[in-house]
């Protein structure tokens, strides 16, 4: 577990953040560009010194302004994959990978072996190349491998997927999922894309203007009102997790348990017993006060209204609880009035679409 409390002032820009990152797992620092995400990473790694604060990882202190502790970056054992990767141009791929490994094994011994990392990231064919002979995705994997081989106790990933095109993203994402699931290594992922958060994060820290707006697991963070500012009015929606109950390959549908209800989703790539994480956008949910009939929408969840919140442009954001799964739905003010929506009211939720989904371990 990482505990950080950091303050920094640079001209007009200030950072005043306090957050945790549970281990193992991926903690996403999510916020718009300019929110101070990369600066926070530099502070954690020890490349920038904060004005005040404390950083502790699993009971060991790296920095404490009150006790006068400031462990230099090279002794922290915190790996860093920079946004611009920073591969050494004077060393080949093999030389880059060995750079941190050689120094770490001198100090603490190597837990992660060269061969294992090379296999994990599919680097076998690249070892003899020079760094400028690599494609964007390959460079990314080499940078990741280099950081891993330095035997870090915490890995910082700064927008690892932002510099590459969509096709390469899909190539790379599985590698990050493998790292998350196979290595018991805590990671902090900086991103401004919510789909990366949905796909990878186990814990989320929301950042804006150098401050932490909120943190927690993704389903609970997705319900926070601050998400509206980060994702835009059309981007907000609850993230729910559910277990895949059954897969009907013939019909191409899988049944996923959400709260006490079930959702049918395309079965592509799903196996029974898996946990599926889905974002249900507030604008894609329809509310009904009676069990609806004769509709093409198949997904219905029985729920109870837990809150109503007025939104701009005559909309109301309705929070509902579907047997343990919290959801958000947006309806017009007129509709809310006609349906006489109020708290603790029983309601049926129709799910038009699942916008983002990802399989979790």
């Amino acid at each position, binding site marked *: 577990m990482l505990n950080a409390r950091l303050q920094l002032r640079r001209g007009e820009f200030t950072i005043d953040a306090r957050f945790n990152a549970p281990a193992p797992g991926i903690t996403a620092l999510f916020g718009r560009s300019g929110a101070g995400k990369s600066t926070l990473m530099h502070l954690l790694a020890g490349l920038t010194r904060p004005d005040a604060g404390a950083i502790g990882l699993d009971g060991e202190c790296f920095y404490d302004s009150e006790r006068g502790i400031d462990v230099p970056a090279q002794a922290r054992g915190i790996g*860093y994959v920079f946004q611009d990767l920073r591969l050494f141009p004077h060393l080949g791929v093999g030389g880059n990978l060995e750079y941190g490994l050689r120094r770490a094994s001198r100090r603490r011994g190597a837990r992660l072996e060269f061969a294992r990392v090379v296999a994990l990231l599919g680097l076998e064919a690249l070892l003899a190349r020079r760094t400028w002979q690599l494609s964007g995705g390959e460079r990314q994997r080499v940078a990741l491998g280099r950081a891993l081989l330095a035997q870090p106790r915490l890995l910082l990933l700064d927008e690892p997927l932002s510099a590459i095109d969509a096709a390469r993203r899909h190539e790379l994402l599985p590698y990050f999922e493998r790292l998350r699931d196979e290595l018991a290594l805590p990671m902090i992922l900086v991103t401004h894309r919510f789909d990366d958060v949905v796909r990878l994060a186990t814990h989320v820290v929301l950042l804006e203007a150098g401050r932490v707006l909120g943190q927690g697991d993704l389903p609970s963070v997705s319900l926070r009102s601050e998400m509206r500012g980060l994702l835009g009015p059309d981007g907000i929606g609850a993230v729910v997790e559910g277990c895949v109950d059954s897969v009907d390959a013939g019909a191409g549908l899988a049944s996923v348990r959400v709260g006490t209800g079930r959702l049918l989703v395309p079965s592509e790539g799903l196996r029974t017993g898996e946990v599926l994480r889905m974002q249900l956008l507030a604008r894609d949910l329809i509310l009904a006060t009676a069990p609806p009939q004769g509709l093409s929408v198949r997904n219905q969840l029985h729920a109870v209204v837990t809150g109503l919140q007025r939104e701009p442009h005559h909309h109301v954001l309705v929070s509902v609880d579907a047997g343990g799964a919290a959801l958000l739905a947006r309806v017009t003010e007129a509709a809310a009035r006609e349906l006489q929506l109020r708290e603790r009211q029983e309601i049926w939720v129709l799910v038009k679409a699942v916008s983002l989904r990802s399989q979790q371990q």
Partner: protein
Amino acid sequence: MSEAEYEALSLSLQVALRSVICSLPLAVAVAWLLTRRRFSGRALLDAFVHLPMVLPPVMIGYVLLLLFGVRGPIGHWLYAHFGIRTAFTTAGAALATAVMAFPLMVRTIRLALENVDRGLEEAARTLGAGPLDRFLSVTLPLMAPGILAGAVTAFVASLGEFGAVITFAGDIPGQTRTLPIALYAALQAPDGGAAAARIAALSFALGLAGLFAAELLARSLRRRLGR
């Protein structure tokens, strides 16, 4: 080419080589100080390093004579403790050319250091490299083309240094009579016209070859760095 001219050529190469080898580490250190450190007196050091570029070489030779002559403070100390004499010796010729070529070397190396991406040093830090380790394993290799270019340029310039050498080291055949001094001596002799022309042509070819070699080396190094 006469034996005396051959001697002048080999002496010139020797003097230039010694001068570059001895001043290179110091030039790297000074370039590093001027680029990476903020200290009081930095501007003064910068000006001091560049003085040989703007002062008459004869004056530099004269100052060296005052400091390193047998009765000068440094020269006396060197002679008393180690029995080393610099004034009017080959070592003295190397010292004088080193001082004259120093600013050229520092400027080139400094440019190379300024072009080193600090981000790569940060990356080395997060990979467990301490300050000296970082310098040796990242900064220095990345500066290598610039260091090499600086060394070769200084070498070629050292071959041609005249004023400081003749003032501090004199004109002793076989010891301090380098190519430019031999050229001057030939011009002074009544029948030295042909010799002077040969030495001038030799100096010209040497200088050109040196500059070409520097460019080729720097190009191959840059290619290794993928630039």
